[in-house]
């Protein structure tokens, strides 16, 4: 009996690995949680709200600094597949300063990017985060379980 048990265990283990040989991911992109069909449009709508909010305030806030043309690039979150809790959200930006060298006529470019981590509380459920960001001024809303906002996170980053 012992050799048969071993064989069954080996077969069960083999069946638990996807056909492409990779183990199932522990963390997934929030756009695909709980499924791509259910998560994709909802998450991208939240991202679009955040970008509009950023564009609305940039001229009076972040874009008053050295880089006056800051633009949002991407907002993405990772989610623990088993629990639906958010592990991390990152928002990326780009901006530039281009100036003429009066002696040579060259264009001197200082262009850069930023990756800003959202100040989330640990174990924030994705559904609660999305509900928060779908209401009112998403950029200024307190993130679930905190008294800080995405805006506060950007202040320390950009």
């Amino acid at each position, binding site marked *: 009996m012992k050799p048969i048990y071993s064989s069954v265990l080996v077969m069960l283990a083999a069946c638990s690995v996807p056909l492409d040989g990779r183990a199932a*991911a*522990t*963390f*997934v*992109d929030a756009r695909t949680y709980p499924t791509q069909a259910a998560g994709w449009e909802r998450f991208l709508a939240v991202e679009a709200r955040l970008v509009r909010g950023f564009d609305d305030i940039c001229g009076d806030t972040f874009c008053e600094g050295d880089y006056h*043309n800051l*633009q949002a*690039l*991407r*907002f*993405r*979150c*990772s989610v*623990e597949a088993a629990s639906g809790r958010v*592990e*991390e*959200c*990152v928002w*990326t930006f*780009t*901006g*530039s300063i*281009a*100036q*003429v*060298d*009066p*002696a*040579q*006529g*060259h*264009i001197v*470019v200082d*262009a*850069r*990017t930023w*990756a800003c981590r959202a100040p989330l509380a640990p174990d924030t459920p994705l559904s609660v985060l999305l509900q928060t960001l779908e209401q009112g001024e998403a950029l200024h809303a307190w993130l679930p379980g905190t008294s800080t906002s995405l805006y506060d996170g950007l202040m320390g980053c950009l």
Partner: protein
Amino acid sequence: MTLMNRMTCLSMALSLSTLAVVGETRAQTGPYLDLVDFPYTEANWDRFYTLQDHLIREFHTLCGASYCQGAYANHILLQVRCSVEAASGNVEACALVIGAGNLEVDGTTGSVVPDSRTWACEAPLGPQTHVEALHAALERRDALVLPLPGSNHSIHDALFDCLN
């Protein structure tokens, strides 16, 4: 007007004239100017920024069918900047500054990993392109895909090489 008011006015007038002189001096530190400042400081401001907005819209329209199909699908034209030889009014160089970025979730650690970058792409100007000729060419519809004055190449050609 009291003496104090007269002195305040005089002081303000002196301050303003000092600022104007500083501005002149800054503009004359070399033979080249920013196109915004041609022929004098901020003289071309409105026309240039209208042109830049037009080129940003043209870039955005072109992007999805061309540059924005690779790993980075969200290129943004951030800025256009040109230098002009003050004495002749010929454009010396133009650069287009572009940013793009991707974010990927690491399935094992949960980290959201950024891969963002920027490019500074030079426009393939023809020799001795005058400011007026450049403005006329770039203010057209499809300005990015049409050849530049005195050149067989378009800005689109240059961007294709620069971004890929």
